[in-house]
């Protein structure tokens, strides 16, 4: 028999496999639309980002409110190659109509004009130097967000910035990055962002097939990351970061470099988010600086809180449920409620409902949806007369703990 602590991971993997197969079969028989398959694939990527958020917040106690910046950066990095290679195809095709074969200079000039004409430029910026190479650009998916997280984290953790100050700092980071990208001369097309990312260069298959490929890739990435993170959190490393969450001063006196561990987790989760973003944006088709808005990272924390922090499946459930409900409510297909004195239009009122749900979960069910599983399993919170499990800001609260 398997160890009880691995049971949740096995159940999760089995559920994900069944879900993936079911969606695939439904798509083959035309029961679900291509756009819905894309929505589900994107949702899996958001679940992947939520896993990272749970590792850093739920396990290590660091409430980062900037992780969607890494998610978007991952998207930008893969988007640059998609847009470049796709435009190259178009430029070569249109030039070959002219009779003479185009020179490489003409092609690269044509690509630059195509991509940057919209912001009034005609030269490729230096940051597009690697955009013609898929392997290099994929390496940047890891390198750019990873390096940013490493530098930002090093500065923040070295100065022992913790708690709400760190949260504010990460919000400032994502806001600053968004404002920078909004500029036309940032080299990433300003507020236009990158578009047409759903068209894979050199692929003739239709979107119905491509959407399934990405859906499978997202499911596989989620499964692999889940297994990896489960191994990490159920081992000694997980024990160290949970100890840091609850009482970091004590961990220092045991000889562990708390700052080193925080930096490690911050960078690792940033890279996971970047991967998730690199899978998400080809399915979304477009990315622009609004994706780095501070609110996006706050949503990430809300998903994890609603699902129940400190348990990996909680993060996935929270992200899947809230983001799917969100796209349902904001899709305009939910009938409005006529109250006589006014009409509740869900496109506008969804955020109010989400806000209320968040408040209610925080007040009445701090374990989130994950707490329901505890109830069925007969697991109770310990009776600590309201005392949290450690002195630190991010420490586990009495009602979140298991006896």
């Amino acid at each position, binding site marked *: 028999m398997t160890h009880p602590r691995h049971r949740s991971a096995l159940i999760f993997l089995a559920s994900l496999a069944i879900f993936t197969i079911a969606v695939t079969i439904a798509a083959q028989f035309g029961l679900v639309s291509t756009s819905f398959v894309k929505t589900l694939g994107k949702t899996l990527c958001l679940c992947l980002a939520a896993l990272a958020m749970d590792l850093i917040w739920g396990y290590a106690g660091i409430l980062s409110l900037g992780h969607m910046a890494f998610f978007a950066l991952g998207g930008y990095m893969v988007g640059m190659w998609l847009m470049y290679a796709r435009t190259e195809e178009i430029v070569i095709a249109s030039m070959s109509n002219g009779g003479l074969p185009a020179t490489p200079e003409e092609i690269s000039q044509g690509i630059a004009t195509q991509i940057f004409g919209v912001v009034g430029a005609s030269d490729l910026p230096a940051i597009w130097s690697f955009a013609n190479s898929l392997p290099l650009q994929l390496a940047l998916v890891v390198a750019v967000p990873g390096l940013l997280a490493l530098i930002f984290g090093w500065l923040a953790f070295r100065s022992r910035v913790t708690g709400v100050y760190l949260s504010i700092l990460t919000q400032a980071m994502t806001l600053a990055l968004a404002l920078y990208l909004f500029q036309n001369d940032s080299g990433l097309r300003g507020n236009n962002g990158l578009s047409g990312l759903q068209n894979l260069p050199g692929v003739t298959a239709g979107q119905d097939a491509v959407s399934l490929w990405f859906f499978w890739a997202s499911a596989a990435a989620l499964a692999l990351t889940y297994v990896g993170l489960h191994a990490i959190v159920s081992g000694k490393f997980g024990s160290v970061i949970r100890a840091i969450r609850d009482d970091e*001063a004590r961990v220092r006196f045991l000889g562990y470099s708390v700052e080193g561990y925080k930096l490690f987790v911050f960078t690792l989760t940033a890279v996971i988010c970047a991967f998730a973003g690199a899978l998400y944006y080809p399915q979304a088709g477009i990315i622009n600086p609004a994706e780095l808005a501070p609110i996006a990272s706050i949503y990430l924390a809300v998903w994890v809180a609603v699902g129940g922090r400190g348990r990996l499946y909680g993060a996935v459930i929270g992200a899947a449920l809230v983001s799917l409900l969100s796209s349902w409510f904001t899709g305009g297909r939910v009938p409005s409620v006529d109250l006589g004195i006014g009409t509740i239009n869900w496109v506008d009122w969804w955020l109010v409902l989400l806000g209320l749900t968040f408040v209610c979960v925080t007040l009445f069910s701090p374990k989130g949806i994950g707490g329901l599983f505890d109830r069925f399993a007969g697991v109770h919170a310990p009776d600590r007369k309201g005392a949290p499990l450690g002195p630190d800001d991010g420490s*586990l609260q009495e009602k979140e703990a298991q006896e």
Partner: protein
Amino acid sequence: MSALLEVSGVTVSFDGFRAINNLTFSIGAAELRAIIGPNGAGKSTFMDIVTGKTRPDSGSVNFGERPVSLLKLSEAQIARAGIGRKFQRPTVFEDQTVHENLTLALKAARSPWAVLAWRKSAADEDRIAALTAQVGLADSLAKKAGTLSHGQKQWLEIAMLLAQEPRLLLVDEPAAGMTLAEREKTTELLVDIARTRAVVVVEHDMDFVRRLNCKVTVLHEGAVLAEGSLDHVTKNQTVIDVYLGRG
């Protein structure tokens, strides 16, 4: 006997208040020492300086045979160099089991990469079993530390300290909140540990200090007032005036 820890001429002040005033202290590699003194004498600040939590304004703190200055090291580096600390209030990781608490403390590489690659070994399990047997927690291995009684948490923390295998132990009021039987056991344990390591015990309880039967350092206003056997220092007129006389 050469000293394991040498503190000399250390001064530290907080907003003009001199918590430690030109303090000089040393302890050998296998010695038990009790530090006593009234509230505000600087006992906790002394421990904070040795463990790296507080940086002194002046003076030097050296540790080991080939002396290393502790003033340039972080808390974690000092702990890895071989200095363990037990706090006054039991501080264990309440959401983790006794076994997990001890695994965290066991002497092993502390870097994130090494911890990721760490796998439990039979030797580690034996060590944990021996430690829990020593402090009477053998039946509680799978229990969360938060569910232990106050006394049991103290024992767990002592076991964690031993698991670190430090060369110098700083123990802050180990007897606080313990029953008489537990105190006697603690005394035995500390005396036993001090056969191979240096142990500094900060304690208020004079009966407990008497049972330790070791050299005593009296702190007052951040400086050493007297040093010697308990009988010697309790006969010292200044000590009686500033500390004992009040009780």
